[in-house]
Structures are given as structure tokens and as C-alpha cells.
């Protein structure tokens, strides 16, 4: 990346406090996002993707706590901010899209109320202007009859319509970056494609940077400029999307791709499972966390925690990365 990064995360660690113990949930995670860039974050469930996302704007609730790490947005250190300062970052500078459109909206307040409240909190503009913008946003996310929608309660909208509103809510104060935590996982394929299409359009229009958290490699392939692969609380690979799909270097990345059902050259469907399961919190194996499931594991994998190291293109945390040409 040539440009100065917009968001920088350095050595972010998060712990879980349970029965007097501090268990690592996220370990030394570092990444940046350039202005206007889409960073995909993938990994299995429980890898720490959502926790990382929430930590960026201090949305962690006990028993989770950030134990170390620097988070900078532009020149500002988010990790040093007071709750009050943080409130002015949330929504205003960093937008957030939650996974489940069914539960993300307050069920007892009208769409319009939720939209105008959000704008009012951040934009110093008059009532009428806010109303106008609210209408514009509803239209912009592709909903018909915006007047009616603003008056509607969330339950009167379908899942797809609600997710559009959630997107509008995240973007309405014109943030510099949006964190989208599995924005399409709860949606059907047909709606998912619509939603991705919408996000891509808005992204192009506003130039907002985006962190797109998902566990669907297909989504990443279509949306992301770069991809960070999470495994057991660490970033195990970070590369440009095309590089990553063409030549995954970390065995876990390759495993994920193999496990996704896809037709082979003859059109026959294939899946190659990764054996075993991701370790739970507090049950991390020594050395490389992936070594018990890794077909390439060597004795040293059991002892050394591989650092995220630069390879020819991108970064990987593996002592024995796959060679460049491994992917057929």
C-alpha cells in the first residue's frame, strides 16, 4: 500500500476473564486499512473476527477486555480515547454493520426515529435537513416508498429491507470506515447478492474504507481488496485477494478453500475437509495453533509460534508455508 493507512491496528490482544483466569481470545493482531480499501476478514467461527471488530471502537463488554494494542484512525489513537471521545468516533468516523438484520434494529422505534437519532447525534444540521437526508438514505439503499418506510416499525419490513436500513444507519453520518460484521450471513443467496451489490455501489460512491468480516470465501473473493485470515485469535495470512486465492501460503487458508464445495475441472464436486476442530479459548496448543490439524506440521511447529512474516506477496504466519505454485 502506497497510501498512508487510515486504520492501523498494532499488536491487539484481547483476553477473556473467567473464574479469575485471563484467557487470550485475540493475540497480537496487526493490520491496516488504507483509505477506500476493503479488507476482508475470514476465518472459522470463534476465530476472533467479531471480537477484533468490536475492539476497534471499544464495544467489548465484560468479561472480554483489551489487554494491549494500539489502534489508530488517521492520526488519532482510538485506544487512548475517553468514552466520550469514543462516542464521537462511533457512527461518525467508524460505521458498524451487524450481522443479524432481525435483531439489529430496535423493535419498538420507527425506522425514521432510529435514522434521525443517529444523524442528530453526529451531524450539526437542522431538523428539516436531517429529515431530507433520512429520506435520501432510504432511497439510496434501494427501498421503495421512503416516506412509508420511515414511519414503519422494523417488524413491518422483510429481512433484506432491514439489512438495507442497517446499512443506511451505519453510513448515514458519513464515516471514514465501515466495519461490517458478517453483513450477509443471515441472508439468502439471492438477497446476499443484492446486499453485496448495494455495499459495493455505496462504497464506490462514498469512498469509505471497509473491514468486511465474513466466513464466506465467496464473499471475500467478490468484495475484498486484501484479505486477513484469522485462526484461533491470530492473523495467519494477510494478502491481496487475487494472490490469496491464486496461491494461498498458509496451510489453513488452503484448507479452507479445499473444504468449500466446488466443482473440479470436470464439473465433479469436491470437498476436502480439514481434520479436527479449531481449539477453543484457553485450549490453545503450544507452538503454531494450527499444527494439530496441519498436514504439513513438523516437530518445530509444536514449539515455535510462527510470526506473521512477509513472503513474496503478502504475509503469512507459518514456519513451513506452502510453495507459491501449490494451488492447482
Amino acid at each position, binding site marked *: 500500500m502506497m497510501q498512508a493507512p487510515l486504520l492501523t491496528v498494532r499488536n491487539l490482544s484481547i483476553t477473556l476473564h473467567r473464574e479469575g483466569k485471563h484467557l487470550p481470545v485475540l493475540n497480537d493482531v496487526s493490520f491496516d486499512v488504507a483509505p477506500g480499501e476493503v479488507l476482508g476478514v475470514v476465518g472459522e467461527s470463534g476465530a476472533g473476527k467479531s471480537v477484533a471488530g468490536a475492539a476497534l471502537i471499544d464495544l467489548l463488554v465484560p468479561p472480554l477486555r483489551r489487554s494491549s494494542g494500539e489502534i489508530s484512525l488517521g492520526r488519532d489513537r482510538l485506544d487512548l480515547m475517553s468514552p466520550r471521545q469514543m462516542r464521537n468516533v462511533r457512527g461518525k468516523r467508524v460505521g458498524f454493520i451487524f450481522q443479524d438484520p432481525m435483531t439489529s434494529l430496535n423493535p419498538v422505534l420507527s425506522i425514521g426515529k432510529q435514522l434521525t437519532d443517529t444523524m442528530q447525534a453526529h451531524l450539526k444540521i437542522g431538523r428539516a435537513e436531517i429529515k431530507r437526508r433520512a429520506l435520501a438514505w432510504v432511497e439510496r439503499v434501494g427501498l421503495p416508498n421512503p416516506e412509508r418506510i420511515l414511519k414503519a416499525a422494523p417488524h413491518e419490513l422483510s429481512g433484506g429491507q432491514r439489512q438495507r436500513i442497517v446499512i443506511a444507519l451505519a453510513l448515514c453520518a458519513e464515516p471514514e470506515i465501515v466495519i461490517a460484521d458478517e453483513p450477509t450471513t443471515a441472508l439468502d443467496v*439471492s438477497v446476499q447478492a443484492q446486499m453485496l451489490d448495494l455495499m459495493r455501489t455505496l462504497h464506490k460512491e462514498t469512498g469509505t474504507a471497509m473491514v468486511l468480516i465474513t466466513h464466506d470465501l465467496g464473499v471475500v473473493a467478490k468484495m475484498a481488496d486484501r484479505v486477513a485470515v484469522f485462526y484461533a485469535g491470530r492473523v495467519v495470512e494477510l494478502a491481496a485477494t487475487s494472490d490469496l486465492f491464486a496461491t494461498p501460503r498458509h496451510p489453513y487458508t488452503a484448507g479452507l478453500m479445499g473444504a468449500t464445495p466446488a466443482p473440479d475441472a470436470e464439473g465433479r464436486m469436491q470437498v476436502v475437509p480439514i481434520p479436527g476442530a479449531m481449539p477453543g479459548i484457553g485450549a490453545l496448543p503450544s507452538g503454531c495453533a494450527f499444527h494439530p490439524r496441519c498436514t504439513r506440521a513438523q516437530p518445530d511447529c509444536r514449539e515455535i509460534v510462527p510470526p506473521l512474516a512477509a513472503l513474496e506477496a503478502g504475509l503469512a504466519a507459518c514456519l513451513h508455508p506452502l510453495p507459491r505454485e501449490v494451488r492447482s
Partner: protein
Amino acid sequence: MMPGEVVSVRDLSKTYGGKASTIEKLLGRKPRGLKAVRGVSFSIDRGEVLGFVGESGCGKSTLARLIAGLMAPSEGEIVFNGKKPRLQMVFQDPFSSLNGRWRVRDIIAEPIRTHKLRKPSEIPGRVAELLEQVGLSAADGMKFPQGFSGGQRQRISIARALAGEPDFLILDEPTSALDVSVQAQILNLLRDLQSRLGLTSLFITHNLSVVRLMADRIGVMYLGELVELAPAHDIFTDPKHPYTRLLIDAAPDLDPIDRTLHPIPGELPDPSRPPSGCSFRTRCPYAQPLCAEQAPPLRKGNGREIRCHFDLQPQSLSVPE
């Protein structure tokens, strides 16, 4: 009913709700029911895996529950070959499908005990055997389901299903709640069991790749109707119904170079007020005036069934809206 068939379903419909209260009856009001499944017919041959795909809410689970006998159909019938076969089902949610108060070994033994498939003394051995068959250890039988991950729970579910020695297995989205890597494990396990035990099954999912991997024939459902039914290969290489085509295209593939998205336009209509005529016409790029007026008949031929007035031509495949 043909000789090789295990189950045959005829004109199956299910309407939810629709009971009027006394006062509504007095006022002569008819509440609108929700027709979740509408006139679905198909049959499954012995040893065959029939797949069903469709969007959320299109009636897949309702269909599965009807066949499983968990509720009575509003119309139509389900005919089994010979006496009622032993049936088992694997559910989508690995967390709600196992009773958290029971030990795994009791969960698995329940079908054996209920149908008296083994002598009581043989049950522990059988349970251990089943646990190993699904890739768990016999010692796991002593634990409670809470101690297992989603994938492991799904294995337990499968073991329970197998314990009932089913003639017919219904799998309702058995991997939708799982991660890709775990999904791959379960799919492989199922495929393995399939080939070893020759199970007849109904495999329901919303993931086209998964159904393509698992099923011999595939039915596509839209708004409670079966819109297309064909051998798996044909569905993907030569989809005849516009919905099938659009559905296949809508799923993003793993190609980071061609980044085009193919969303299906519009939204799923309210299932309690399906559109007139063809139910897909509101989203169909090829819809004609006829589609609004007449419900398309189910056309059969070449081992395929399709509910559309027209034949989709290959050249029109890429026609954008």
C-alpha cells in the same frame, strides 16, 4: 407407487393458521392462512438421495416435517412402500436437536430402545460402534451434549439417526449451521455412510454447492411450490426454470478475478399472498403477460419436471434484466 420407490408424495399441501375465531366466523370473515407447501409431488427410489433447495421460507422444512409425520398435511398424501418405514431425521440446529439433560449414550440409545432393535445387553456395544462410525470415541458417550462443538453434535445427531436403522433418512440442512471446514467433514461422513449403508434420503439445504455434492436428483422450491426437479447434473449444466438459473448464478464463487454479482431482482413475496399465476413472475426477467394470468402446469419429460410456461433457451441465460 412404483416398485423401487420408498416414498411417494402426491399433491402435498400445508396451510398454517387459517382457523377463524368464533367471532370471526360469526362475522363471516375468513382469515388468510399461509400456504407453506403447495401441491408438491415427487417420489424417492430406494438408495437414492433426493436433494431440495430453495430460499429461506420456501417451505423446505415444512415439507420435511410433513414427510416425517411431525404434522398432518392439509391436502395430499404421503405413501410409503409397504408398511410404514422406519424414519429418522437430522436437523439443522445442532444445539436444539439434542436434549441437553441426557447423556450422549442415552440419546443414541433412545431409538434402539424404543424400537427394541437390540437386546438391552447389546445396547452399549452398539452405541460405541455408532459413535466410532461417526468419528467419535466410545468414551464420548458418557458426556452431555454441552461438551461438544457444533460439528460433533451433528455427528451425534447422525449417530442417533443411524441407531434407528432407518429405511429412510431426512436431512434438513444438516450443515447450514456449521463452518466450512466442519461442513466438509460432515458431508464427507454422510457420503461415506451413504455409500456403505445405501441409505435412501431426502437432503434439504439452501446451499447449491452442497446439494450438488450430495444429491442424485434435485428439486428446486419457490414459495412452497416445486418449480423444477431433475437429475443433479442436469440442474447445474442445463437449468430449465429461470429461478433455478438465477439461483445458481447468485451464489458468489471463489473467483476473485470476475467480480460480477448476479443478484436475483426483487424480493420474496409475502408467502401468505402469493402472486397470481406463476409465483415467480414478480422477479422473473422473462415474465410475460401470460405468467400473471395462468399458473404454469408442471411439465414432465426426460426424467425432469418443470413448472414454467416457457423453455429457457441457453442463449438467454446471460440476458441481464
